[in-house]
């Protein structure tokens, strides 16, 4: 069994009050034992052993072994070392990355560009509401929307919407490529045409 509070046990044992029995008590016990011939004979036959000094030394050593305490100082040193290692590795990785990436070494030039706000405003408005409404309507009228002509219209509409979302994402908030903006408008125009056609079937 593992003794958890070993130091307390040792301290407790050391503080125990000592008591010595008087010699007469030991003599009395001895006399009583010697009076029984069978016991006296058996006792005389018992082998005697002397434990080597090393055993006692080992026991004493175990008893006086200092209790292991968690050394906070040691942990903080280890943590600092680990942190240093991580930072060093990250720095090495960064250096390696920049040596692999030819762009990392290039100088950045900064200029200004004036952009027509009307161009940017084209990217702001969102009329996906009509598209969602017509799809909802389609879901509610499945018997019509499963017709080949109507389902084709719906598929085309979904394809256009997917393209529109991709374009919007590519343009972002500050996309100024007139070609892409015009394409977005063309898609919206076509979408409107399809929504009108689809609505005719659904209403």
């Amino acid at each position, binding site marked *: 069994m593992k003794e958890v509070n070993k130091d307390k046990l040792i301290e407790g044992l050391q503080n125990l009050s000592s008591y010595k029995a008087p010699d007469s008590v030991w003599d009395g016990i001895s006399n009583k034992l010697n009076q029984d011939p069978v016991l006296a004979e058996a006792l005389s036959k018992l082998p005697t052993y002397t434990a080597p000094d090393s055993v006692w030394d080992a026991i004493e050593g175990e008893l006086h072994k200092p209790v292991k305490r968690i050394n906070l100082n040691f942990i903080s040193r280890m943590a600092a070392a680990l942190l240093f290692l991580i930072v060093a590795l990250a720095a090495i990785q960064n250096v390696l990355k920049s040596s692999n990436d030819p*762009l990392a070494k290039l100088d950045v030039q900064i200029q200004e560009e004036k952009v027509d706000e009307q161009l940017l405003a084209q990217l702001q408005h969102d009329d996906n509401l009509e598209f969602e409404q017509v799809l909802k309507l389609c879901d509610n009228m499945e018997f019509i929307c499963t017709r080949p002509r109507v389902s084709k219209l719906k598929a085309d509409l979904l394809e256009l919407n997917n393209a529109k979302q991709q374009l919007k994402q590519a343009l972002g908030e500050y996309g100024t490529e007139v070609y892409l903006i015009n394409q977005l408008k063309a898609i919206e125009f076509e979408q409107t045409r399809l929504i009108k056609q689809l609505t005719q079937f659904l209403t």
Partner: protein
Amino acid sequence: MKNLIEKFIVYQFGIFLAIMISGLFNLAYGQTTLKVASKSLTEQFAYLPGMEVNVEGQKAEIVIETWDENRVEILIDFISKHPSEMVARKDLDAIRYSFKTIGNKVYFRNFIKKDDGSEPQAQLKAIYTIRLPNACPVYVKNQFGSTHATALTKAFTLNSEFSEIVLDNLKGDIDIRSKYGDIVGNGIHGQVQMNARRADITLTDISGDFNIYTAFGIVKLFTDHRLLNSLNIDGEQSDVYIFDPLPSAYGYELTAHYGSITTPRDLKFNYLENNQTIKKAVFLPTKEMASISINITFGDIVIRNP
């Protein structure tokens, strides 16, 4: 009276001031200033026969030109635009670029990816200006940009989405696939394949053999019977226009499902089928000339003398 005059002057001055201020606001309104952060890079290497140049761009404006020098030169500008200089600088790093050589193929690639996986806030763009010998085959893949190719003579392959395509004076094997990006070409000569979805095709001065597939687009071809060898167009929900100074020089096989066929009056087409669902018209020229075959579903075919 003097008081009145003073009041009038103050009133007039007030109006003048108001006009000036509103004028200033008007000037200010209508323009946003973006900070443009950019990096430039030049790659060049000797051209060896059999070499092929591959460019894969995202949000890239790619210009391909030819020259007499026996080397390939690529100038690349990486651009990031945003009202905040800090954001423009930071998002510029989201443009990734690589340059590899595998065997006799040279690969340039740029794509957009931020370290933290988020979407860049700035508007990003890469501009490639490529100069190479005209015999060098070129393969380009591009998205959300534009591709201009000029004077290549051996092979040009383009796979493009949401990008403007301008082809000028190309020869050899030409293969163009485009989705949401019109194709405009002048002087296209050779074995040509085009596949355009939701994209218009306009070609002038063409010769050789053409195979075109079109969906949701308008195809306009300005042909010359002395040059054209064969032309096949298949498509859906597209209109096809052929403009030729001598339309009677070709053999035609035209089919329009749920569409119409319009031909010059002096050309006596033989209608094999002609009802509301399908129209099939053929014309055989007196001399064996180039053939034009067009098959369109939900679209019109127009042959016209310009």
